[in-house]
């Protein structure tokens, strides 16, 4: 039985051409820490059945993403919006009979998508907030005043120089710049 999403897709989307398939993609993913067991998935569908996101989404199916990764549909997986829908609740990881760490594999896919230049806006904001203040969220001045009124000690400050240096050596700042350049091109 074809899945709901497949019925909805156009004829073009259904056809997989052999030149789309990258046979090394699964090995590339399995090298990432935590994503070793991608080849263990035997498509039982427990992850999709238990997924709280799949229950409310028409397109997010973890099983399908695992199969696409195994097959090597690199471009389709990395450009898909679906890989960004996982909420990392780890229900699939807990229930998987083959111990596949689906959340970690999705994280690996996301990391790879970012390297290709795909990054949702929210992660850009969070990243720039961390580099600017050390906190993932900009804490407004009214909050800080309220802290004082409540008798709480002042918030610890972040050492921004070391954060900038770390983002430089881990290649994090490069990833952020990548998207910016692309945006300028648009």
């Amino acid at each position, binding site marked *: 039985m074809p899945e709901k999403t497949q019925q909805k897709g156009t004829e073009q989307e259904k056809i997989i051409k052999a030149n789309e398939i990258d046979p090394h993609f699964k090995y590339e993913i399995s090298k990432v820490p935590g994503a070793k067991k991608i080849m263990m998935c035997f498509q039982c569908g427990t992850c999709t059945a238990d997924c709280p996101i799949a229950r409310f989404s028409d397109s997010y199916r973890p099983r399908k993403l695992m199969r696409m990764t195994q097959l090597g549909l690199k471009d389709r997986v990395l450009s898909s919006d679906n890989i960004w829908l996982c909420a990392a609740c780890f229900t699939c990881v807990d229930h998987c009979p083959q111990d596949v760490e689906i959340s970690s594999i999705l994280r690996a896919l996301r990391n790879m998508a970012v390297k290709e230049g795909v*990054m949702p806006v929210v992660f850009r904001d*969070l990243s720039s907030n961390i580099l600017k203040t050390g906190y993932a969220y900009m804490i407004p001045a009214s909050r800080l005043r309220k802290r004082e009124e*409540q008798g709480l000690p002042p*918030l610890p400050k972040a050492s921004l120089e070391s954060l900038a240096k770390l983002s430089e050596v881990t290649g994090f700042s490069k990833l952020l710049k990548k998207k910016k350049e692309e945006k300028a091109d648009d």
Partner: protein
Amino acid sequence: MTELKYLLFLGCIIPYRINSYEISTRKVAKKLGIELVEMPDFNCCGLPIDPVSHDMMLTLAARNLCLAEQQNLNIMTLCTGCGGTLLKVNETLKHDKNLKEKVNGYLKEIGLEFKGTIKSNISFKCFWKTLDLKK
């Protein structure tokens, strides 16, 4: 290392949205006789940017753990996200030598080194342990 002294890791979301959680934690800690030390320096635990760069997330979490190692204190986290991240990164780096080497390579740039001498726990687990000790 005493069990009654912890480095308090606030996280980002607690000062941003849920001050009440911090206040109640401080009150409970006081009642149990736990001393809470403020972080000398803080950065986000890294969880929000895990999808962007796993390496950066590991490094950010390891940096917080290093700061606690310098003071020789265990970490008490409030937010479950930070708690999970610090706990997981701490355990992973303790057992995975290759990953530890990689992260230490990054941390060397700012003069820190992850040794794996401390523990990180979420607040209620710390309270639980203290109650067990007092029995």
